[in-house]
């Protein structure tokens, strides 16, 4: 018990624990749609793209860098889906070019001008140092946006994720729903970036969702389980990070990886069969003409 209470005497840990737990829940929640749409690589790419915006915006408009990086991320997301949808460049190639170029720009800017925010390695692997109240507020706001989006568009999101063509034929504006999902994804990555880290955010989008998929055949239950698993990874990972003295993001992802292995072993063949079809694609399905 002492082990759990002792770190809480530090204000920085309280904030870190709160942000890590909420971040895990948010990424677990939104990750279900990302994984089932075969967009894991987009999550990976977007976190790198947003890093570029994050670095650039710190230089040009320090007080608005969160907003600027968010807009940068959304612009990257729309650029990727537009290029991929037109089919001229494969989705993988589009993500590779757009996001790594943005990431490279971020690294260059960080190296040349330094950072007024977190240090370079902290941005890459996650840190709980220097979490501000405004960051917590941003995180809660994005959670509310993501929650409201899924609540109000639940069936449209499910239908377009399962079968975009039939959804479109049934009167759902698939392109609009996808664009809204990409915006929510960009915002989710942005507000969780500092604690989880640029290079590790994608893992937290994928791991809880895959664990949940191995445990259930129902979409509704998968959404709930994935959120709880993400939350638990954030909570447990944060404590382990404190005691092990390693960056928060790395420990949160490692807890997720261990949980994955345990569920993989426990659920046996059934779990493996369920997870086998998850994320077989690597880009948005370009079947709908915009």
């Amino acid at each position, binding site marked *: 018990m002492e082990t759990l209470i002792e770190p809480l005497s530090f204000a920085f840990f309280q904030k870190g624990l709160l942000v890590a737990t909420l971040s895990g829940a948010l990424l677990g929640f939104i990750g279900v749609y990302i994984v*089932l749409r075969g967009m894991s690589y987009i999550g990976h790419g977007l976190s790198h793209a947003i890093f570029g915006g994050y670095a650039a915006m710190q230089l040009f408009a320090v007080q608005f860098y969160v907003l600027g990086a968010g807009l940068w991320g959304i612009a990257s997301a729309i650029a990727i889906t537009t290029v991929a949808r037109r089919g001229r460049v494969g989705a993988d190639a589009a993500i590779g070019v757009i996001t790594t170029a943005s990431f490279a720009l971020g690294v260059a800017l960080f190296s040349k001008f330094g950072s007024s925010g977190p240090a370079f390695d902290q941005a890459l692997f996650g840190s709980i140092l220097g979490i501000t109240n405004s960051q917590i507020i941003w995180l809660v706001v994005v959670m509310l946006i993501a929650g409201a989006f899924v609540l109000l568009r639940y069936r449209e999101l499910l239908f377009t994720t*399962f079968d975009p063509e039939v959804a479109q*034929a049934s009167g759902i504006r698939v392109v609009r729903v996808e664009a809204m999902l990409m915006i929510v994804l960009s915002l989710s990555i942005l507000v969780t970036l500092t604690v989880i880290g640029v290079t590790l955010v994608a893992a937290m989008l994928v791991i809880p969702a895959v664990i949940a998929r191995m445990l259930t055949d129902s979409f509704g239950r998968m959404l709930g389980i994935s959120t709880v698993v993400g939350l638990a990874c954030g909570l447990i990972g944060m404590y382990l990070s404190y005691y092990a003295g390693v960056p928060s993001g790395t420990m949160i992802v490692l807890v997720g990886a261990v949980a994955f292995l345990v569920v993989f072993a426990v659920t046996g063949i059934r779990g493996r069969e369920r997870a086998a079809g998850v994320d077989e694609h690597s880009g948005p399905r370009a079947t709908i003409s915009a």
Partner: protein
Amino acid sequence: MTSAGLIDLASVSAGYGRTTVLHDVSLSIDSTAFSGIVGPSGAGKTTLLRVLLGLIKPSSGTRTTAPSLRVAYVPQLETVDWKFPVTVFECVLMARTEHRFWPWPSAQERQAVAAVLDRLGIADLADRHIRELSGGQQQRMFLARALLREPQVLLLDEPTSGVDINTRHDVLHLLGDLHNDGMAIILTTHDLNGMAAHLPHLVCVNGHVVAEGAPRDVIVPSVLEETFGARLEVLQHLGMPIVVDGAYSTREAT
């Protein structure tokens, strides 16, 4: 079919990118339609279906629909992600895209799903994962989802491909019942004998509409040769045209 129907195509050409798959198609679907689009692989059957559904915009020509038209679409079983985590109930409920503030189903929606599953004889499978169904049951599930929309026009892409002969009969009978209830039905098929001869109206497609009309009028060697690019013989059996490959001897068959 008469003009000013539920869906009208006038001189429509359509395709993907710079490739035009369908040329100059004029077609009218009215409320009495029960029609099969037949043709070989790559002839543009599915493209025509997608144009009718509004999924592909014509590169030239026009598509017009009746005001507030309700359509439902049953996709090919082969195109479905069967590992997706949904139960039969969740899948059928997708048809009701509008929901109250809370996404979970109302009592009325639960009853509606149960009723349509019951009508299709799969009520006991509601909580099963979609992968656990047989081909025929999967087809019924998608029919249930389509019927829950209470459509005026039902379009089906190869509804009998990949299902056994009993299911094929069941599906055809069910579609016949729905047609008798006043639903317009359009389906694609490459199975001339199994399906086409049972439908009252056929549209033969091979990049363009080769012919359309009653089976006895379009299942004739000249139309079949232009549609399928091969010589096919037509025999009459119990008043129904039967197509045999040209390689067979007509002397033997008669």
